[in-house]
């Protein structure tokens, strides 16, 4: 049974256009042009209990707005969302007790006091029994390796330490659904990996449903079997990450290293019609090869006789996402 049901959801913002300069400012006093932008436009999808779903899309695509709509921070303009059977924008306390949103740039932790004080505050807010609270904090602090930091003023902590504590605070009431907006932003690679490991464990052991947005492809690859690509507020793709890769890049990356530099004329004949990747090494040849032709092209290269290494790889997901993100307005339909 789906825990999140989104049906033709839309959110529009109105704003005034202001011409630059003093003249523009003065003109704005008597005449302002009102504009409307659709941050989320007719979005529909479902998420089952226990799924981990990644939202992908360029800046301003509508990912964060979607999360905010699902958390009840925003009222939808049209359409509706149901999460755990609740209408999010009503912000019923019984609903808010079952969800959490971690925002990379908005903090739950109070700055001047240790994180434990925020946790104790949340204990009262969420009415957590003492024993359960203690057990949860001990458990999460151990997994996140922050037990020693709970009694240190938040302002004295590093960004990575703060983000792990933000996660702890968000999870202390054991939400059924966790919304994550850029949870690893600004973290070093070690901290990013720890957060990813933790989220994977959380999903596997507690069945927490997770929806996350991230610009780090490693987050998406490591955590999300399912991805949704959103652009201009609309769903462009919904499915497995591997399907997205196949759709955006219907080719593989074939690299051959020769014992001696290869003759350009030979190469030209060999790879006619294929996309050759630029290389500084005259012994190395990189090609984008259609998936159905990979075996045949590899065979041709090997028949040349002096190949010392040959590799066939998927195009890095990072490159795929770069293509998705750089698609022009109203660009490629992926669905």
């Amino acid at each position, binding site marked *: 049974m789906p825990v999140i049901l989104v049906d033709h959801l839309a959110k529009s*913002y109105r704003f005034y256009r202001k011409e630059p300069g003093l003249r523009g400012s003065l003109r704005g006093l008597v005449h302002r042009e009102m504009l409307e932008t659709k941050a989320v436009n007719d979005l529909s999808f479902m998420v089952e209990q226990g799924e981990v779903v990644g939202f992908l899309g360029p800046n301003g695509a509508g990912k*964060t707005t979607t999360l905010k709509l699902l958390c009840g*921070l925003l009222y939808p303009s049209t359409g509706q969302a149901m999460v755990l059977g609740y209408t999010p924008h009503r912000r019923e306390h019984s609903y*808010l007790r079952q969800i959490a949103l971690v925002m990379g740039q*908005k903090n*739950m932790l109070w700055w001047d006091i240790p994180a434990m004080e925020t946790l104790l505050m949340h204990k*009262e807010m969420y*009415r957590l029994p003492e024993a359960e609270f203690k057990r949860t904090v001990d458990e999460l602090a151990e997994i996140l390796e922050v037990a020693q930091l709970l009694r240190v003023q938040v302002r004295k902590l590093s960004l990575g330490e703060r983000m792990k504590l933000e996660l702890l605070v968000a999870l202390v009431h054991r939400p059924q659904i966790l919304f994550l*907006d*850029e949870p690893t932003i600004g973290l070093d690679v070690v901290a990013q990996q720890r957060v990813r490991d933790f989220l994977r464990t959380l999903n596997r052991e507690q069945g927490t449903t997770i929806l996350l947005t991230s610009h780090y492809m490693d987050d998406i690859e490591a955590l999300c079997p399912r991805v949704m690509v959103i652009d201009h507020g609309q769903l462009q793709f919904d499915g497995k990450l591997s399907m997205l890769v196949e759709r955006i890049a219907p080719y593989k990356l074939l690299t051959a290293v020769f014992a001696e530099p290869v003759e350009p004329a030979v190469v030209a004949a060999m790879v006619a019609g294929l996309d050759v990747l630029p290389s500084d090494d005259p012994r190395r040849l990189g090609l984008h090869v259609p998936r159905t032709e990979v075996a045949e092209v590899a065979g041709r290269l090997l028949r040349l006789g002096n190949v010392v290494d040959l590799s066939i790889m998927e195009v890095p997901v990072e490159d795929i996402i770069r293509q998705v993100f750089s698609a022009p307005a109203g660009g490629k339909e992926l669905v």
Partner: protein
Amino acid sequence: MTPRLIWRCVAMNVMMTIEYRGEFAMRMVNTLLGPLISLLVWLTVSEQGVRLPYDRDQFITYYLLLSLVSMLTATWLGAYLAAAIRQGDLSPWLLRPVPYIVNDIGNNAGEKVIKLVLLCPMVGLVAVFLRASLPSDPRAWLLFTISLPLAAAVAFLLDFVIGSLAFWIQDVWGLIRVKALVGGFLAGQWVPLALFPARFQGLLQIQPFRYTLSFPLEVLTGHLTPAALAYGFAWQVGYCVGLWACYRLVWHYGLRAYAATGA
């Protein structure tokens, strides 16, 4: 909203205020200096032979207690609330199963605990220096302790409602500044309301700012008849209820307009 939650929120704000104790000590010096300057002006006027409704002792009592009461009923959160709405900093609170107003109640009360600890010795020293005589009627003190939290509630809710207008108005700072200036004047911050011309007294008695500062002082200094006391308390309670209703209404519609700016 449980008492334990309110207590936790207040305690947390006490802890945060302690972090900035030096700054708050200076602020309390400022809180005391304003009324002291007004007191010196009025004592000088009084010594020139001008007939005033208050004598020397009453002026000293009024302005010394004014520094304490103005601190205890002060509110400063409207501007912060407006900024939080405009910049999207309200979002972390809206995700919690607790009304946002609890945060501001905790902040307001928590800071005042520390401010009281800092201000009381200062006021005590000045009282000894000026040989002030405090009111001795226990009934007046009892009524004062009732009107004081009501005054704090009126001031707090008024500020909170004005700050909440940021849901629709880009910049409510101007409004907050006007309120601070006009409100201070009409609350008796600089001139006791009793010293205003008689023809304005009717209006002065029903305007809300009186019930944020002047009324508790009037109750304590024994200037009011039983009928005037009952009338004043009725207005004070009425403002509390009315402003609470305003707060609920403004937030009911305001949250629809909230843009949750920022990631």
